[in-house]
């Protein structure tokens, strides 16, 4: 699917299953993703975000469409730009606010940041910073489904940059070889930090990579939430039926720098302008109004409700404390007694007072001075 083609109305079985309520939910998730990230940017500039801030501007439709296509009991492993998928799985805005602001109440208890949380109840496997690795781990989740004969499936994302790692290749090779129930969404967002995907790979058509693993690939307009949803639903159904992995190539664009500190001066201006005209949220708004699902007024109401909820969540979270310092040494091991045995390496050394009484330092200093003289 060529980029810039606008919203396409699929008329097959999958999309017919989406009703007015689904359309509302998809829109709300798209807008919530963007509004939450904008909120994060504000509190980042206010100094409340402890580390870096990574946005998914322009890529919201891929994350939301995929997340929405999953069923209860399925598992997902996001990459850094898939906030929308986590919101679709039931993660609350305040969970994200707590992560970025390192609150003790956060899903990682302040020990890790961004979307690095694993929440089994919601079927979420957190990624780690070395890229491509979450696919290898999600394979194990998929393996457990197959071993237990459960009709559950997995879906994970990787950017075109992450897809170059050894872990990614190994993960794809194993998922294909073991015929695991998994869907891999390759987000061709054109930039891996400051390097264009053309410098990351000699691949023209990214769906071609699937041939190396012997699995099918489908390319979608990643800025069209319905097209993404449709492709994901079909690939998930295929995995659920025991037919193995599908790669979905999402053609999309990273509209901001790698992180908040990156002004993306290396990005050609005309590219940004071209893709700005293909904004996934504005396109969907036009579609929803044109086909009578929503009016501009009803969409504005959705946005207002999101904003109000974010106001409350932000105020609440900013009032919450950091974790207590001593928590730094908790839950390293599964046995609490091993955590308790982690040596404390600084501060007062036991027995100091006794040493001072036995050999007063003043005497030693005097002795040294007299020896030196």
């Amino acid at each position: 699917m060529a980029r810039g083609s606008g919203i396409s109305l699929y008329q097959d079985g999958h999309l017919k299953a989406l009703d007015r309520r689904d359309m509302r939910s998809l829109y709300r998730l798209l807008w919530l993703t963007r509004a939450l990230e904008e909120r994060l940017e504000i509190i980042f500039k206010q100094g409340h975000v402890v580390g870096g801030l990574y946005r998914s501007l322009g890529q919201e439709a891929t994350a939301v469409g995929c997340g929405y296509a999953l069923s209860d009991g399925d598992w997902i492993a996001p990459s850094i730009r898939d906030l929308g998928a986590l919101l679709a799985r039931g993660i609350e805005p305040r969970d994200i606010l707590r992560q970025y602001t390192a609150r003790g109440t956060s899903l990682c208890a302040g020990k890790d940041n961004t979307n690095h949380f694993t929440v089994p109840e919601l079927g979420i496997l957190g990624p780690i910073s070395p890229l491509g690795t979450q696919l290898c781990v999600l394979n194990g989740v998929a393996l457990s489904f197959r071993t237990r004969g459960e009709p559950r499936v997995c879906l994970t994302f990787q950017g075109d940059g992450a897809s170059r790692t050894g872990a990614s290749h190994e993960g794809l090779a194993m998922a294909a070889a073991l015929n695991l129930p998994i869907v891999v969404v390759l987000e061709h967002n054109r930039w891996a930090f400051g390097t264009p995907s053309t410098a990351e790979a000699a691949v023209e058509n990214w769906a071609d990579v699937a041939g190396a693993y012997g699995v099918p690939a489908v390319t979608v307009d990643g800025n069209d939430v319905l097209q993404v949803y449709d492709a994901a639903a079909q690939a998930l159904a295929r995995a659920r039926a025991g037919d193995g992995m599908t790669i979905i190539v999402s053609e999309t664009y990273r509209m901001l720098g790698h992180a908040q500190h990156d002004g993306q001066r290396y990005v050609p201006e005309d590219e940004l302008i071209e893709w700005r005209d293909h904004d996934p949220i504005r396109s969907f708004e036009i579609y929803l109004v044109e086909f009578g699902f929503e009016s501009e007024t009803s969409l504005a109401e959705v946005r207002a409700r999101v904003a109000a909820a974010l106001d409350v969540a932000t105020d609440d979270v900013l009032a919450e404390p950091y974790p207590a310092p001593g928590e730094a040494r908790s839950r390293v091991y599964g046995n609490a007694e091993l955590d308790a045995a982690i040596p404390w390496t600084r501060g007062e050394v036991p027995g100091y007072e006794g040493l001072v009484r036995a050999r007063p330092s003043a005497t030693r200093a005097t002795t040294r001075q007299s020896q030196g003289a």
Partner: protein
Amino acid sequence: MTSGETRETTYLTAIREALQEEMRADETVFMLGEDIGVYGGAFKVTEGFLEEFGPDRVIDTPISEAAIVGAAIGAAHMGLKPVAEMQFIDFIAPAFDMIVNFAAKSRYRTGIGAGLVIRGPCGAGARSGPFHSQSVESYFANVPGLKMVAPARAYDAKGLLRAAIRDPDPVLFFEHKFLYRRIKEELPTEGEVLVPLGEARTHRPGNDLTIVTYGAMVFKSADAADRVAAEDGSEVEVIDLRTLRPLDTKSIVESVRRTGRLLIVHEAPRFGGFAGEITAQVCEEAFEWLDAPIRRVTAIDTPVPYAPTLEDYYLPGEDDIVSAARWLLAY
């Protein structure tokens, strides 16, 4: 133990039995690795497993150590108990990221642990060259969250592997390939052989000098101790660490406070090896009890070479241990 009957069991058979017994008792235990199913494992540890447990529990994987360990982590998150085999422990290097960044930090970061075992043949002496002979424990020693086991006896290989499979944390289980078929012990035929992680054992008691060691060096150290006893009349205590992390500092310190002299022997290279850490801990906790400097006998700081002359030069030998022990006893 329900009866006193025993059977001669090799170190390798003990490992096989531990795997078999855990897999029979608990259907969540499964194995994955290269050539472990159809072929039965490079050392035949898992021979017959595919037939007994089926392809869902004995999984032949592509040659992709990162993916093997990754899948083990994911399966562990889902409540299974994976045992991943590294065909040779040297091949753990491609899985380093998955172990140190994913498995080891998982519980700390997310509250969801990764109870899994990564086991494989380690160690030199089998004329196998730089990539089939390494001792990799120090690569992982600086990573909180991991546990590491290096048994010397067949009994411990069996008992510790069972404990490792039941452990809630990622355990690296180092099987010394030189011991696989050379070590034979009478093991109980009935009842559970289970050895808790984190406890050293006294392989040979003595009051004049403490040798702290593990793996194949336990036997070289014991032979050296016997020689010192026979030729010099001194009694050397040999402590077999069995588990490297968590390290049983208490047992080491107790012995050193009794003997006043410490020699640490390991097969891994010297710089950054476990001997350095043990030395530091003993200096912190038993300095006043020491009657001599702490000494180390280790491999030299080179890769493991191939030719017999080179490998023998590389590895610590009984003579080296005897010399160091005599120096310490004379100090």
